[in-house]
């Protein structure tokens, strides 16, 4: 069982930031599957799931952005009501706290992914092994 890597970019909260970051990805033909922005007074963190993670990380670094790669859990689910609730129930039972979470949906609208950031990835992965939840594995599945 494995997770997926999320790219985080640290950015001051000012106009044009997302534009500059996404320009790097667009120029490299990198597809953004999901994007989320957490901002606080003065600065923010932009998080991406992309199709070419290593390339995206490398290019953003080269352009001088402050970037970090973090493993997150990606639960595969059907694009229909009640799916996130099922996953959340399991996480509650296992006492796994969600630090951050967001969703992306596949083109076909058949499948969607619930991305969850947790504090202790190893513990979460170990506990989830016994559960009947499908986790996306970046290393195995090729889009």
């Amino acid at each position: 069982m494995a997770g997926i890597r999320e790219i985080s970019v640290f950015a001051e909260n000012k106009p044009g930031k997302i534009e500059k970051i996404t320009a790097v990805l667009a120029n490299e033909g990198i597809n953004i599957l999901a994007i989320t922005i957490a901002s606080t007074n003065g600065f923010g963190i932009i998080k991406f799931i992309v199709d070419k993670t290593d390339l995206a990380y490398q290019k953003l670094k080269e352009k001088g952005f402050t970037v970090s790669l973090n493993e997150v859990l990606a639960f595969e689910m059907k694009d229909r009501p009640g799916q996130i609730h099922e996953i959340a129930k399991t996480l509650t039972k296992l006492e796994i706290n969600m630090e951050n979470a967001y969703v992306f949906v596949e083109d076909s609208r058949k499948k969607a992914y619930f991305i969850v950031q947790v504090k202790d990835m190893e513990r979460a992965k170990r506990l989830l092994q016994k559960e009947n939840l499908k986790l996306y594995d970046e290393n195995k599945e090729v889009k």
Partner: protein
Amino acid sequence: MYWNEEIETIDRSNLKKLQLKRLQGTVRILYEKVPFYQNKFKELGITPEDIKSLDDVRKLPFTTREDLRDNYPYGLLAVSRDKIVRLHTSSGTTGKPKAIFFSKNDINQSAELIARCLIMTGVTKDDVLQNMMTYGLFTGALVMHYGAEKVGILVIPAGPGNTERQIALMQDFGSTCLHLTPSYALYLSEVMESKGIKPKRDLSLKRAYLGAEPYSEETRKKLESMFEIDIYNSYGLSEMNGPGVAFECICKNGMHIWEDNFLVEILDPSSDEPVKEGQEGELVLTTLCREGMPLLRYRTKDITKVISGDCPCGRTHRRISRILGRVDDMFIVRGVNIFPQQIERVLMSIKGVAQNYQILLESYDKLSVKVEIEQDFFDGSIEHLLNLKTKITEKLKSEILVTPKVELVEPGTLPISEGKLNRVIDKRTL
């Protein structure tokens, strides 16, 4: 009106004789009692006998704030410790403050100078002084307090802050004089305006004494019209007793510096040579009446100039202009002296902070510090960044005593400083 007419209007030639006598006395005591000065005299090959005229002051060694730090806490005392009755401190560049000691006579003498200053602005025994400077280790409030009591006026030891209560005190006790920083005066006027308080209609204010921070003539005019009072410029520094070193009379054209207490030199900071009368230079002061901790040729780092000509008020002590700048990069926020090096030292001690930072002074009481974070510190966690921000804020506050607004920025985004001066961006229009 004079507090001490004889000395305030003393003939200049008699003043010089008095200065020379006092200078010789001070030099002799330091030569006998203070090892720091004994060594300096030895290095320069001089003895007290070499001081034959006032110009001979230039043979004497300088004293710098580093000397005060190096001799902290008791090294510069010229009397035994049982003669000392009060300690004040002033912030320094390296974490250690400068300690300033007062003997009983020193307290009286600093109060005497304040008494002259207050009377010089038209104060009478019927006045009520609301003292809004910080009581404590800073000299600002206590020295003024003792001087006002010496005059015999009612002093309200309000201290700074709690603006609503300040206004209530003014209303309830009919304060006629305020002693405060220019930045707090600006804030106070805003609060009064928002509350619909019309000073002339609702209060009894006549005058305010502004000190501890540099401010412009324009700000004085603005505050005078907002409060509908006279505002007088006050100059002092802890190393020279605090407030009362120089003060404006009712003519409001430069501050009379009490030359019977301080020997004034204005030097070109690059050559240490005296400037021509009326030209700008660094103010260098020698105490002439101090007992506990006399200082020779103390480099204030403040830039000013002598205002030539006689003052219509009749006082013969020369006037200096408001402070025009600093020789070093010290700046003042809310009356607190801050050196960029203090901020730098704190920042560099914190893990996650990169080399570059910037200090922004945007409004009269706000200090912002932009800090670049280290590439490797960033792990995608907003919590870690917020913790870092809190840590920086708290550590800075405990060092500089002012709570800064800390902004975290990306590495490599701040302009690269070539000198320390570039790190401070002062946009204030005080």
